């Protein structure tokens, strides 16, 4: 059981780490899709099937497409898909900060006593989730719906082209 988890973790972490170091943005986005699929596999391993399919739909399906569109819309020329290499000082300080946070978190996790609890796997059916969403958590569901609507409308307003500015910009 642990071997499967370690395999999933290695694939996910490897894909994420390589994606964060590549200079080609398209390759980074594709590797991050692999990483998100690994996270979905972790959810399947943990027994949360509904969350795994939501992760596949939202991240592997939707967010990755939005990212690819953003990469293609913000390149400077047709062949310009690589980004300039970042400054070594910035990379170094980022690495030091991230390494320090990583050390603190690992130390805390390893030092804290978390015994093997023999709790049975909680089983949640989609029917239960639906009942809870519509019953106990109906208010949260409505609020999330409003947040999504407002955020997507805001995204359209921010990203939509301003006609007047465009005609002034183009020579």
């Amino acid at each position, binding site marked *: 059981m642990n071997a499967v988890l370690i395999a999933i973790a290695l694939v996910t972490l490897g894909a994420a780490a390589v994606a964060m170091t590549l200079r080609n943005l398209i390759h980074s986005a594709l590797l991050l899709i692999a990483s998100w699929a690994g996270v979905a596999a972790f959810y399947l391993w943990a027994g949360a099937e509904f*969350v795994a399919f939501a992760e596949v739909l939202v991240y592997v399906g939707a967010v990755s497409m939005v990212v690819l569109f953003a990469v293609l819309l913000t390149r400077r020329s047709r062949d310009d898909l690589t980004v*300039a290499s970042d400054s070594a000082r910035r990379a170094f300080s980022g690495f030091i*900060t991230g390494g320090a946070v990583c050390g603190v978190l690992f130390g805390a996790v390893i030092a804290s006593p978390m015994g093997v609890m023999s709790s049975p796997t909680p089983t949640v059916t989609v029917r239960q*989730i639906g009942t809870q969403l519509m019953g106990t958590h109906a208010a949260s569901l409505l609020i999330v719906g409003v947040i999504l609507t407002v955020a997507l409308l805001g995204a359209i307003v921010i990203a939509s082209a301003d006609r007047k500015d465009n005609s002034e910009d183009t020579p």
Partner: protein
Amino acid sequence: MSPLQLCLLFSSALFCIGLIGALARSNTILVLLGIELMLNAANINFIAFWRFSPSPSPATGVLFVIFSIAVAAAEAAVGLALVIAVYRHQKNIRLQEAARLKG
């Protein structure tokens, strides 16, 4: 080592990869992707604690993660729209050069 600790180590490592990416890269899209990785690491923590600890109601962790994914999707959409807006003004999406508030 218990499976819960392994899950927590996994999510800590994913969080730190996202943090290093968000701090070290200067491309705005890659910074956003690093933040998405950090959000995913938090969701992994929710699921790990839901799976390995007794909870009063069986669906709590799952519902938490579903709401978290919805908010993360909204954040990604707004963030990438901001990237496109910055690109339209500056013709560039390097973070260091987007230093003006007025377009």
